[in-house]
C-alpha cells in the first residue's frame, strides 16, 4: 500500500494543484504540505477532513483504503461504461512513475487488439490479459484489479474506478 505522502502528492497532481495551492486553502505553509508528501509529518484529523473536501473524496479514499479491494457490484448498482475510468499505475524500479487514465469506453476500442500494451511499450504490461480485465468489469467488478511486480522489478497496478 502506498504511503499517505505518495497518495497526497498523486491526488494533488491529478487535480493540477501545487503545494502552495493546498497550503493557501488550508491556511498553512507550503513546507508543511511538502513534509506530508515526504512522509516526514502527518496532518491532524481536522486537516484530513479539509484535504478530503479539496479533492472531493472520502477520508478513506484519501488514506488509500477504498481503492485497494476489488468489489463486485450487482447489476442495479453498476455504472455505465462511460462513467468508469481505467487507470494504469507503473512504479519502475529505477524510480520512474507512469500514470495513465483512460475513459473505459476508450479502452473498449483498443482492448480487442491488445493495443494497450503496444502503446504503453512497458514490458511489465506484456503478460496482463486486458480482455480478461475488461470481461471482469463488464460483469460488475471494479477497484484494483491487478497488482503485479514484473521480472525487472516494476510494480504495476490497474484500477477501474467510477467517476
Amino acid at each position, binding site marked *: 500500500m502506498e504511503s499517505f505522502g505518495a497518495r497526497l502528492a498523486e491526488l494533488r497532481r491529478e487535480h493540477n494543484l501545487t503545494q502552495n495551492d493546498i497550503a493557501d486553502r488550508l491556511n498553512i505553509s507550503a513546507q508543511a504540505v511538502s513534509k506530508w508528501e515526504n512522509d516526514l509529518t502527518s496532518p491532524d484529523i481536522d486537516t484530513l477532513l479539509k484535504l478530503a473536501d479539496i479533492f472531493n473524496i472520502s477520508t478513506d479514499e484519501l488514506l488509500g483504503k477504498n481503492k485497494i479491494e476489488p468489489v463486485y457490484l450487482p447489476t442495479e448498482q453498476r455504472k455505465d461504461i462511460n462513467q468508469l475510468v481505467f487507470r494504469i499505475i507503473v512504479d519502475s524500479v529505477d524510480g520512474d512513475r507512469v500514470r495513465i487514465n483512460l475513459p473505459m*469506453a476508450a479502452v473498449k476500442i483498443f482492448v480487442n487488439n491488445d493495443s494497450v500494451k503496444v502503446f504503453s511499450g512497458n514490458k511489465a504490461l506484456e503478460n496482463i490479459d486486458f480482455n480478461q480485465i475488461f470481461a471482469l468489469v463488464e460483469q460488475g467488478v471494479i477497484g484494483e484489479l491487478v497488482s503485479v511486480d514484473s521480472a525487472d522489478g516494476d510494480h504495476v497496478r490497474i484500477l477501474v474506478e467510477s467517476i
Partner: protein
Amino acid sequence: MKILVTTPELRFPIKLIFPIGVLRSRWIWRIALKYTDDDQKQDIMMYSGMIAESVDVLEKYVRNNGHFNLVEVEAKDGTRVVIRI
C-alpha cells in the same frame, strides 16, 4: 490536448497545445505513413482508425466530466511529462 514538459534544467515548462480533433484527419495519418518504416505501416493503418474512434470518446468524456490528465510520466531525474485532454 496539452502536452506539458518540465525538467530540472529548464527554467520554464514547455507547453504544446493542439486540438485532438486533428487525429481524425486522414491527412495527418498520410504524413505519419510517409515517415514510417514499411514494417510498421500496417500498424499505423490499423491504429489510425482506432485512435480516430477514441478521439470521439475522449471529447464526449471531456464534455461530461471536464479535462483530465491522460498520461503523467515522472522520471527519477525530475523530468515530468503530462498529456492533458
